[in-house]
């Protein structure tokens, strides 16, 4: 975590902060919605980066915690409980608990088995959500936006936007501190060499489990915002393809960099939005086949762009030395 990384993070956040006034000036309210959505996914991607990038835990079921957070809001809203001061603790508690249980079992394994077991747990909850007829089953259910006792109006686009922005900024700052703390040193070192960590006296399992649970909880918070954003909750949030997309955002942006996944989420969602349109312009009906272009882009980034978008920025904008990030 060097100075360039901090500047890149601040610059990115400054750009997000500047979006609402710009959309007002240019009378393009649509973009505020779009960037709000990007920031929600950025929060989820950053939380995944904590365990994937820093902790080396390749969780292939991370979107499920977004689903848990979203369903907490949806179900409470269904029973008329729209108070955010109630919803948020419930959502965080539920995602933390589920993260703790899934993590406790998954972290007994490593490598491919870890990937598969996290995926299996996620699919389990996905199908559970589908079976919840009371809450819309497969079709999902609509949900009200959270209320904060008149302090914040989530239906005001500008206020809602800045709520998401502040959450993203706080998550980034908190995790930035965490990664450099004693706890952060332990999970980063355990990624590099778990056996050695145990030999010098760290019971690494409990630290990895704590990191896994924390990441799940933060992702649950992203889920709260996601439900508010869509005013709708469905099992689709938890589908494994969304877990895959979160991983792509992290890898695209740069693993273990925190701000990288924010950039990755931005790039991914912008491409998802505009690639079909561009292709449609080039050739009629080409838009629906946007994955044909998206796929190779992802492969190229994984093969040639190690370090992702973050590394690209770090290399071109600041052309000083220091290739390594501690």
């Amino acid at each position, binding site marked *: 975590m060097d100075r360039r990384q901090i500047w890149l993070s601040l610059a990115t956040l400054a750009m997000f902060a500047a979006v609402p006034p710009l959309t007002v000036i240019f009378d393009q309210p649509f973009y505020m919605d779009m960037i709000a959505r990007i920031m929600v996914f950025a929060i989820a991607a950053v939380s995944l980066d904590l365990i994937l990038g820093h902790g080396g835990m390749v969780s292939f079921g991370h979107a499920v915690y977004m689903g848990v957070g979203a369903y907490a809001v949806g179900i409470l809203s269904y029973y008329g409980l729209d108070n955010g001061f109630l919803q948020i603790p419930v959502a965080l508690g539920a995602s933390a608990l589920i993260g703790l249980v899934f993590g406790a079992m998954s972290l007994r394994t490593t490598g491919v088995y870890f990937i598969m077991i996290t995926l299996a747990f996620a699919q389990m909850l996905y199908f559970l959500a589908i079976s919840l007829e009371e809450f819309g089953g497969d079709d999902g259910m609509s949900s009200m936006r959270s209320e904060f006792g008149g302090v914040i109006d989530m239906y005001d686009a500008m206020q809602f936007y800045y709520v998401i922005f502040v959450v993203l900024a706080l998550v980034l700052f908190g995790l930035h501190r965490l990664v450099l703390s004693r706890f952060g040193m332990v999970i980063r070192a355990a990624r590099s060499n778990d056996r050695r960590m145990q030999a*010098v006296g760290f019971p690494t399992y409990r630290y990895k489990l704590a990191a896994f649970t924390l990441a799940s909880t933060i992702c649950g918070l992203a889920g709260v915002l996601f439900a508010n954003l869509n005013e709708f909750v469905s099992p689709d949030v938890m589908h494994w393809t969304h877990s895959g997309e979160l991983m792509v955002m992290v890898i695209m942006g740069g693993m273990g960099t925190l701000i990288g996944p924010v950039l990755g989420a931005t790039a991914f969602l912008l491409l998802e939005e505009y690639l079909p349109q561009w292709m449609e312009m080039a050739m009629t009906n080409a838009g629906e086949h946007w994955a044909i272009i998206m796929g190779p882009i992802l492969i190229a980034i994984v093969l040639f762009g190690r370090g992702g978008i973050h590394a690209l920025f770090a290399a071109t904008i600041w052309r000083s030395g220091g290739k390594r990030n*501690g």
Partner: protein
Amino acid sequence: MAEPILQIEGLAKSFGSLVATDDLHLDIEQGEIHAIIGPNGAGKTTLIAQLSGELKSDSGRVRFAGRDITTLSMPARSALGLARSFQITSIFPDFSALDNVALSVQAHAGHSFRFWRPAGRDPGLRAPARKILDEIGLGSRADEPAANLSHGEQRQLEIAMALATRPSLLLLDEPMAGMGRDESAKMVNLLRDLKGRHTIVLIEHDMDAVFALADRITVLVYGRAIATGAPGDIRANDEVRAAYLGTETAQEVSSA
């Protein structure tokens, strides 16, 4: 004489039909350098893995400082003061040399559920780590990423990381592995410095180093201790000559 710091009683370990440790009995006395030698495949590294808690033993008991540690995990044994270095260099290459040692200090400075203050500016971790690096002769390389250190320096760092856990017993698995003559000489001096302050179990192929350092030597063949004694006795032991030095001579003859 005081009770041995480490008592190994009937320790055994097999991998399928391969017997790696075979009913081993051995006492390590407080303060000694006890070398364990033996031909390749004698089960030396397996023994270290069993003693450090990485491998579960099939049977037998290990007592450390008067306590039965047979079923304890690696971190739990480390907490009691048993440290280990690895035959294959096992460091954190992306971290600086100082970070590597500071991690070991941190492992024994209470729990690490501390999420806010940067560990990299924590004098409680950095100062002891720097002191150990200075002692071991790596002080000038403290801020270098461990990956950039030479092989010999990495082997020294390996020892520093073990020392930083403030162990009463050091298990050193071939600290001179892959070293040149000069580097080996440095390491011998380093280990000689440690003598007296730490009890050391030393596994080593470099016989000059072993005979220069060891107070006692145990010869391991096929997982069995065929002889234990002072260096002079071991050198004169016929069984050892036959089983160990003999095979080496035979190899030399056949390869010549």
